[in-house]
């Protein structure tokens, strides 16, 4: 798949150089593929996603509107916020959103990735994501079973002591 992609890139360069010759030698018309993204040709769409930055053992995410096919950390269309996954001294994970621009991009048909959707749900801009609720329930259930197990262990120890 990567081979095909690099082939396509190479073909595009080839096309641009070849057209200079063809217009003089042959009478065929070579159209210059001038638009940068060529939406119909490449079929990309805009996404709102997290772009990773920071340093070793210190991640930091920027909430970014970018085209789907572009690399995760490279060029983006616009930055819409940030997310710091490590809690600070007050035990808070800081998130920033530019709601106006997020509204604009969603109106233009941008998709959101799962983590961004979860964060927006927690912020109140979107409804709460189903997985957030489900994970919270799972954690509560696990905590309950742990409690029950601890109680039972205590009871057993008490009986043994007696």
């Amino acid at each position, binding site marked *: 798949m990567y081979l095909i992609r690099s082939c396509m890139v190479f073909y595009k360069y080839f096309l641009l150089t070849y057209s200079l010759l063809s217009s003089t030698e042959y009478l065929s018309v070579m159209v210059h593929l001038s638009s940068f993204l060529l939406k119909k040709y490449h079929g990309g769409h805009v996404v709102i996603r997290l772009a990773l930055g920071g340093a070793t053992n210190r991640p930091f995410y920027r909430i970014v509107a970018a085209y789907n096919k572009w690399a995760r950390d490279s060029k983006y269309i616009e930055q819409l916020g940030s997310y710091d996954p490590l809690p600070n001294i007050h035990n808070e994970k800081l998130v920033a959103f530019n709601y106006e621009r997020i509204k*604009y991009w969603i109106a233009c048909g941008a998709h959101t990735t799962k983590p961004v959707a979860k964060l927006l749900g927690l912020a109140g801009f979107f409804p709460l994501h189903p997985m957030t609720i489900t994970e919270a329930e799972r954690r509560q259930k696990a905590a309950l079973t742990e409690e029950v197990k601890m109680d039972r262990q205590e009871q057993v120890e008490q009986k043994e002591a007696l």
Partner: protein
Amino acid sequence: MLRALSRCHAPVVRLLSPRTAVLVETVRGRKSRTDPIAKSKLGRIKTPPPVDPVEMVVLKERYTEYNLILRALRLEFKEQMLRKKYEEEVGSVAEERTKREAEEHRSLIALNDAENLRMCKIRAQRMQKEAEAAELKKREAAILRQQELESYIKEKERQILLLQEEAKDFITPDNLDQRIEEALDNPKNYNFAIDKEGRVVKRTAFQQ
């Protein structure tokens, strides 16, 4: 066996004819479809992760609701944006903007006119002052010239009178003989002596 070129980032041309040294990255541990399975994994049957059916049903319901709300939100935002764009380009916002701009233009033009008028007045005054000053200078120059002329004439007249006075004593061919006689009769002695204190002695030894 293991395809070393499974993940290469170089373009096609360099792949086919690598003129430089190692261009290609090898990634350890990735197998393709045709590679044989490892001995430790021969009896392994891959199963999907276990799922709680009750939870799954609840989750599916939640997802349908979530997607419905999201779709509604998307359409809502789209409508808002279109409305805002319309307002800005065609509707009330555009009208207000044009009105404001016209008002601004009018006030600016008025300011400019007032400024021009003020500058015009100042300029008129300045021109008047300059004209008066020039007039004054011209008059004074004329007076000065007149005075110069008069003084020149006076000087020349004085010189003429002086010359006339001197002309009376001139030696002419008429009284030439008379003057020679006179000069020979009265010899004049211009010699004198003077010492360091400045005493002048006109009577000298050479005397006729």
